[in-house]
Each structure stands twice: as structure tokens, then as C-alpha cells.
């Protein structure tokens, strides 16, 4: 009896159950929202959450802090912009080439810095991020400089997907905004599925061991340098894909996509939502995208309120929102 109950609970709280719930919620979202503005927010949440899910593999699971992850997001977005508008590649080909290029870039920069520990790794990733932002600002011929650069609409299987378009499917009419949301949601679900698969594998165990005890991992046969590099590359590719998509979605990007502030926003999402909690960081992403909407009432005080919320959550729920709430629920149940 007790065992049966435990089993049932296991399925409910198993990560894949969470994925099902997430997919269901995302699929039902259109029933709850009606206007383009809401769809716009939802799309941004899904794309931001995709970056966060990847970054969480690096920071939350493997315990390697990156304060420069927006560089990879920006690199993906700019690579897509440059490849489509200057080299006439189709958006999907550009997106995939960008992801591959960013992966190689992450591998190259990751090799020398990932043996650094603690604050020195933070410093190095931060430095890389700042340098990337400065390069994007200064290389005007390539990037358009501080004014930014435009991107064409995404095209899928020969069909252009523009936020301004209208599309017919099986007798139904979709607006471009709605389709973009569905695309972003699908990308997020796939991103989560891949992340959950990684975590629930020998690779995932090795990554978590890096966080738990690097020494234990080493003597258990884990080539720690190799695994750090791997997860760094994986999380960079997540960021690159989301960056490319965001670029096509918004049609225009500026160097702020790769700024230090954006890197900080990304790491904040992970820590706020809950390190090593894939669903927590999705909540974190939702909060960080939505907070400015709620804070418009405060106008000039927006930064003050945001800073205060950030400090308060981290002080009172140091493990992040979702893990802390789940812990309390569990304690309540016992």
C-alpha cells in the first residue's frame, strides 16, 4: 500500500511528468490569451526559458558559473543576421550554421578558462561577455554597430513566418504572432526534453558530480575538463539557437542582446527560478520577462522594486523559487 502510493507520487513528480504538464500548459495557453501583446510576451518567455534551460545545465547542474552567457545568445543572433542578409543563406541554414559556429567558439574559449575555479571562472566568463559586447558595438561594417542590424523573417519549409502574416492550416486561420508562439513553445519543449534526457543519464550524473565533488568525480573516472567543456558547449548552443530565433522574431537586434546586463539577467533567471531545477528556471524566465510589465505602474521606481524583489527572494528563498516551494509543500505533507 505504502509502496503503491510512493510509486504514484514518483510518476507525478518525475521530471517527464513535469514535461507533460508543461506541454499541456503551453498548448492550452491560447485559450487564456487573446491579443498579440500577450502572445508576444509568451514567445519571449519561451525563447528566454530555452536559454535558461541550457544555462542551468552548466550552472545549476554542473556548478560552473557563467556571467557572460549573453555573448553566445548574441553571437547566435548576429551570426543569423549576417549570414542571412550578407551571405543570403536561408534562415534555417543560417540558424544551424550559427549554432555549429557558436559551439566551436564555446569549445575554443572554454578550453582555457574552464579549469578556473570559483570567482576566477566568473571573472573570465564575465570578461569574455564584455569583450563580445564591445566587439559587436565597434565592428560596424559587420554588425551595424550600436544601431543594430535587421533580420529577414524566418522561413520554414519554404514558407515565410512573419509576425505580420496570416496563415491557413486545415481550414483554420492563424496569425503570424500565434504561429511564432507555437514555434517558440515547441522549441522550449524540445529543449526541456533534451535537457531532461541529459540529466537522467551517465553524462548527467557526471555533470552533477562536478558540482557535488569534483574530486569524487575525478577518481570515479570522470575527465572533468572534458565534461565541463561539453556542458559549456551544449549550453552555448542552446543560447545560440534561442538567439537566432529571437533575431528573426523581432526582426532587429542591437548589441544589448550580448551585453553584460543581459548575461546577468540570464544567470538571475537560473538562480531565481532554482538552480538544478529545469522547471524552476522556466518560471524564473517567465518572472523576468513579466516583471517589467507589472512594474510599469511604478514607472521611475521600476529598478528599485526589481532590485528589492531580487534581494528578497534570494535572501528568503536561497535555493530559488521552485525548489524552495516544493520543499515547503513536502514538509507540509509530512
Amino acid at each position, binding site marked *: 500500500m505504502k509502496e503503491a502510493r510512493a510509486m504514484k507520487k514518483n510518476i507525478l513528480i518525475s521530471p517527464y511528468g513535469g514535461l507533460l504538464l508543461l506541454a499541456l500548459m503551453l498548448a492550452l495557453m491560447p485559450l487564456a490569451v487573446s491579443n498579440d501583446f500577450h502572445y508576444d510576451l509568451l514567445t519571449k518567455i519561451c525563447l528566454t526559458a530555452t536559454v535558461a534551460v541550457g544555462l542551468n545545465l552548466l550552472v545549476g547542474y554542473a556548478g560552473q558559473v557563467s556571467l557572460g552567457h549573453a555573448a553566445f545568445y548574441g553571437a547566435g543572433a548576429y551570426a543569423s543576421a549576417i549570414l542571412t542578409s550578407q551571405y543570403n543563406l536561408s534562415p534555417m541554414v543560417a540558424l544551424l550554421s550559427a549554432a555549429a559556429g557558436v559551439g566551436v567558439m564555446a569549445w575554443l574559449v572554454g578550453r582555457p578558462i574552464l579549469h578556473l575555479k570559483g570567482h*576566477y571562472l*566568473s571573472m573570465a566568463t564575465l*570578461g569574455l561577455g564584455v569583450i563580445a559586447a564591445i566587439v559587436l558595438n565597434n565592428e560596424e561594417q559587420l554588425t551595424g554597430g550600436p544601431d543594430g542590424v535587421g533580420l529577414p523573417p524566418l522561413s520554414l519549409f519554404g514558407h515565410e513566418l512573419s509576425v505580420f502574416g496570416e496563415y491557413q492550416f486545415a481550414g483554420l486561420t492563424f496569425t503570424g504572432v500565434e504561429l511564432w508562439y507555437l514555434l517558440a513553445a515547441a522549441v522550449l519543449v524540445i529543449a526541456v526534453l533534451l535537457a531532461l534526457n541529459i540529466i537522467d543519464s551517465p553524462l548527467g550524473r557526471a555533470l552533477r558530480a562536478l558540482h557535488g565533488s569534483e574530486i569524487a568525480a575525478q577518481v570515479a573516472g570522470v575527465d572533468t575538463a572534458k565534461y565541463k567543456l561539453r556542458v559549456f558547449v551544449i549550453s552555448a548552443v542552446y543560447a545560440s539557437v534561442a538567439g537566432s530565433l529571437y533575431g528573426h522574431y523581432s526582426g532587429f537586434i542591437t548589441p544589448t542582446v550580448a551585453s553584460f546586463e543581459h548575461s546577468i539577467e540570464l544567470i538571475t533567471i537560473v538562480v531565481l527560478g532554482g538552480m538544478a531545477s529545469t522547471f524552476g528556471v522556466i518560471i524564473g524566465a517567465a518572472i523576468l520577462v513579466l516583471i517589467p510589465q507589472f512594474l510599469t505602474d511604478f514607472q521611475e521606481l521600476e*529598478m528599485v522594486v526589481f532590485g*528589492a524583489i*531580487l534581494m528578497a527572494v*534570494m535572501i528568503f528563498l536561497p535555493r530559488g523559487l521552485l525548489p524552495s516551494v516544493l520543499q515547503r509543500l513536502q514538509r507540509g505533507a509530512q
Partner: protein
Amino acid sequence: MFSEFFQFTFSGITLGAIYALVALGFTLIYNASHVINFAQGEFLMIGGMGTVVLVGADLPLPAAMVGALVLATVAGILLHRLAIAPARDADVVTLIIITIGASIFLRGLAQFFWGKEYHALPRFSATESLSIGGATLLTQSLWILGIAVVLVVALALFFGRSRLGKAILATSMNKDAARLAGIKTQVILGVAFGISALLGAAAGLIVTPITFTAYDVGIMLGLKGFVAAAIGGLGSSTGAVVGGLLLGLSEAYTAGYISSDYKDAVPFVIILAILFFLPNGLFGSRAAERV
């Protein structure tokens, strides 16, 4: 040719002195509490902006300066009391996010109460510049160097001689032992944050007459201070000063001889190069991790 070099060197040292003060603030807090304080740059902003605002309220310059320094020190102590102390056992990344939250909060307050405009302060001396061997030296730079040297010496004396300074050192080295020896470690940590804020504010104040100030100047200055501290090996005061000067000089030479577009990238290129060869900074310990 030589006068140009001399001029770049001089402005580099001036800039370096500022970075050194910020880095010393970082080092102080890092040693005392192992926190990397991302709000450190905001103390510079409070030093500069606070003085500007108080001068605007018709206070004489010296009184305005003292007011701004006091304001920053109080902010530092409150930062520790309200945000760091309650999160004592939190993860390193969590603490980073807390200090980032604090820096956004402080920046937001400054923007709300003091506005978004850029401001300058009058120079401390009536003459603007001196000409030595063809090079033009700003008198304000001399003030910056003089004050920085005084502050560094005062800090060294404080830690070497005073009871309070020694208590901070003892707390840095071993918190539990210090507590057993009757030191109120939380009070001591608060003092460390206060002194660090004071240092930052002083740096922000003396640099304002030549660089302008605004609610958001703290971000870049704070980051560069962090770089300078990391070059020195996070936790070494000598390292912080050397790191600051090194940064200032390389930034000035890059701006002068190469391109000012990439001036802001210089500190980060340097720290990456250094960490590549010395993963614990120039002055960091290289002890084997105990297993």
C-alpha cells in the same frame, strides 16, 4: 614623442589609482566575507553623485564631500546588515545575485531621486593644468594621486596598528577563532563593508571632476575594479594596488597608441591573458587543494 608617452603614463597612473581604490574595496570585502560585491561600483556613484547633489543643495564643496562619503558608508553598512548578513549560508552564486540585486536597487534609487542627467564637479584647485616638458598635467590628477596615496597609507596603518583593523584581519583569517576570541564578527563584517564603501565613494568623488558622473557610472567602474582585484589575486591588497595601476596604464596606452574604441575591452583581455597563465591571479596563493 616622449612628452606624449609621459602624458599617457600620467593619465594611466591617475586612472590606475582609481581602479586600485575600487579593487581595495573589493579585496576588503572578499577577505572579510568571501563575497564578490557587485554593488561596489555603486559606492563610486554615490560618492560622485552625492557630492553633486549636495553641492546643488547649496552646501559648500567640502561639506558636500563629507556628506556623500557618510552616505556611502551608511549604504555599505546597511548592505551588509540587510542583505548579506541574513544570507550568510547561501551559495556563492546566490550571494552574487544578492549583490547584483543591491546594485540595481541602489542605481534605481539614484535614478529616482537624482535623475538620469550627467553631472560634473568643479576641480579641487583653481588652476586647471600644469605644463611639464611639453606634457599637460591636470591638477585634478595630482589631487587624485595624492588622495589615493593617503588613503592607501591610512588603510595600511589602520590594519597594522588599530585594534579594529586587527579585529577585521582576525575575522578574515578565521571567523570561528575570532568569535571565540570575543570578537563580534558580524559587527566587524559590517565595518569592513562600511570602509569598503568609503573607499569606493572617495574614488568616485575625486574622479568626478575629470570624468563626469551619472546614476549608472558604477557598472563599468565596478567591473574594472573587480578585474583589478582578480589580477592581484582576489584577497591581496598589494595585488589590488598593482592590478589597478596595471589596468590604468594599459588602458591609457591602448587609448593613446591603438584605438579608444577598444579601451574598455583592455582590462578584460588582460585578465583573461593572466588567468590563462596564472589561474590564481598574480599574487594569489598556489597551494594545493587539501583533500
